[in-house]
Structure formats: structure tokens, C-alpha cells
């Protein structure tokens, strides 16, 4: 027996209420749950609600009914126990994060063996130092802009394609761009102890930080492009809410 469009929509809403907000996680869970519910209705002869409750538990969502009738369970509080789904998302985040770290590291290694990039890097450093000599404040502002480039990319994709929103893959790629940003903030934080105020910190330090992180900025943008391309290839559409 195949579930109707409405029943599938009901399960999708149930997942949203269970805080499975990423569509690229939800689509896999939805297919699994629908398949399992269909199977249980046919082979175990149970109702839709009973089947969904069994599958809900199967994911490790411990639900205690407290004497509530199964038909009322969906109204009263099935959504309160989503520990299994939370674990599912956490584990997926962990693996995607591991995958991106691997890609970042691989790209970084390639960059440092690529003559073209090394020339680009040297040119960037020289240009940046020249700007610093000409106008230290400008070099600080340009440096800031360079370091937030991956974040600008993340915002760009957010507006360009709605499938990039509420996507675990993109959220993790943004996370690695935020890591870069937090490293920059960390340098502020460490240095502000040695100086009276942030304004007194010599600009040269930020120039050095920018030069140091430039390869990582470049790799981060590459990772973004790769994630976007991969998602485009796999899902091949702009489709989800």
C-alpha cells in the first residue's frame, strides 16, 4: 500500500516539528519513514498512526505515552521526544564536517605545490605590504574584506539559490568560513590584552594575519563552490522550502 500525498506531507510536517530543519537530512528520513510505514501497514496489519509511532521509536526517539491513547499521541506530544533525530543530525554534521576538513586540507596541500598559486600568493603579500606602506588603515580595511570573503560567498549563495538555505551541507561549509573569521577575532582578542584599546593595535599585525590566512580564504571559497556544484549535481534542482 502506497501512502497518499497528504500522508507523506503529514510525515514531512512531523519531521519539521521534530526539529529536522535541514531539507537535505529530511528528505532521506522522509523516504525511510514512508517506506517503513508502508511496509508495516501491509505486513503487520497496523494503522498509519501505529506504524509511524513504531518507526518513531525505531530511530531511538523514546516516547512514554503516560496512558495516552495512541490516536491522541500525535496531538499530545510525539514531537517532544526527538532525541533520536537529534542524534541522527549530530552524527551527519560530524561526518560532513570531517569531509569538509579533509577537502580543505587536500586543497591546501595542492595549493602549496601549485606554482601558479604560489606566484599569486607572493604577489598578494607584496601588494598588501605596498598598500600598508602607502596607507596602513586601507590595508587593514582591505584585509578585513579579504578575510570575510568566504562569508560574503555564503551570503551570495544564500540569496542566489534557495536550496542553499536550511541545508546541512551549506550550513557546515559556512561553519568552516566562520572558523576563519573566529581565528581573526581571536587575534584581536589576544592582542587587545597587550594594548590599551583595539585602536592602538598596530595595523601591521592585521596585515600579517591576513597574509597568513589568505591561502585558507582561497580554499574556503573553493570548498563553497565544490559544495554548491556537488549539491547541484546530486539534487539537480532548486526545490525545497
Amino acid at each position, binding site marked *: 500500500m*502506497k*501512502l497518499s*500525498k497528504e500522508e*507523506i506531507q503529514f510525515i514531512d510536517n512531523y519531521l519539521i516539528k521534530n526539529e529536522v530543519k535541514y531539507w537535505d537530512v529530511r*528528505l*532521506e528520513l*522522509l*523516504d*525511510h519513514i*514512508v*517506506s*517503513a510505514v508502508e*511496509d508495516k501497514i501491509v505486513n503487520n496489519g497496523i494503522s498509519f498512526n501505529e506504524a509511524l509511532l513504531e518507526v518513531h521509536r*525505531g*530511530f*531511538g526517539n523514546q516516547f512514554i505515552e503516560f496512558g495516552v491513547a495512541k490516536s491522541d499521541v500525535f496531538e499530545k506530544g510525539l514531537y517532544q521526544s526527538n532525541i*533520536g533525530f537529534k*542524534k*541522527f543530525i549530530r*552524527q*551527519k554534521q560530524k*561526518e*560532513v564536517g*570531517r*569531509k569538509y576538513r*579533509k577537502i580543505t586540507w587536500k586543497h591546501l596541500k595542492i595549493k602549496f605545490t601549485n606554482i601558479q598559486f604560489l606566484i599569486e600568493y607572493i604577489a598578494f603579500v607584496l601588494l598588501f605590504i605596498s598598500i600598508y606602506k602607502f596607507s596602513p588603515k586601507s590595508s587593514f580595511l582591505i584585509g578585513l574584506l579579504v578575510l570575510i570573503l568566504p562569508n560574503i560567498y555564503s551570503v551570495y549563495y544564500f540569496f542566489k539559490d534557495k536550496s542553499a538555505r536550511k541545508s546541512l551541507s551549506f550550513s557546515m561549509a559556512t561553519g568552516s568560513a566562520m572558523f576563519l573569521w573566529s581565528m581573526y577575532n581571536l587575534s584581536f582578542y589576544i592582542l587587545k590584552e597587550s594594548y590599551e584599546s583595539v585602536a592602538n593595535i598596530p595595523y601591521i599585525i592585521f596585515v600579517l594575519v591576513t597574509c597568513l590566512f589568505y591561502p585558507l580564504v582561497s580554499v574556503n571559497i573553493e570548498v563553497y563552490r565544490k559544495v554548491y556544484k556537488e549539491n547541484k549535481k*546530486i*539534487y*539537480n534542482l532548486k526545490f525545497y522550502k
Partner: protein
Amino acid sequence: MSNSKLYKGSLNTIILQLLNQHDKMYGYEITQKVKALTKGELNITEGALYPALHKLEAEGLLDVEVAKVDNRLRKYYKLTETGTKETVNKLEELAEYIRTMQALVNPKLA
């Protein structure tokens, strides 16, 4: 995964081998296939299957593809080239493990 903890260490090999025998499979299909092949002896739970699939995907051993099936999207897993090579290694490892255990548990058969 229910049944025995002994199966736990072999879960990746089981998934890789199943995908080696089938062009592509989706999550629920894998659980049902294992259940059928083992006549209900081995029951892979969702909590064990998906982390393993996502890990194998992150390691580059599996590739994914999405298709629309019955009013919903279905995510299929298939082996990459590296995955196919790794399956051979994992199966050899498993065979070696079985031989070693056989020698320990039942020396006459080893």
C-alpha cells in the same frame, strides 16, 4: 544494530558488499535486504545504518544520487571506484578474521 555486538564491527563491510552486488541501494532497502538474507537473524537499526552510510560517504567510498519516487525524493547510495577497491580489502579482512576465530574456537575445522 540489534542482535549481537559481534556484528557491529562488520557493518561497513556488510554495506559495502551489498552495494557491490547491487548497482545502487537506498537506506531502507539495505535494512530489508540484510533482514531477508539473514532470515531475520540480523536486524540493522536506523541508528546504526545511517551513521555508517554517512561515514562511508564522507570517506569517499560511497557516492549518492537522488531520484523522485512515489511523491518523494529517494537518496541512493552506490560505490565509488575507491569504494569498490576498499570492498575487496574489507572482505579479505573479514575472511581472515573468520579464519582466525575458527582457529581459536574450533581448531579442528581451521
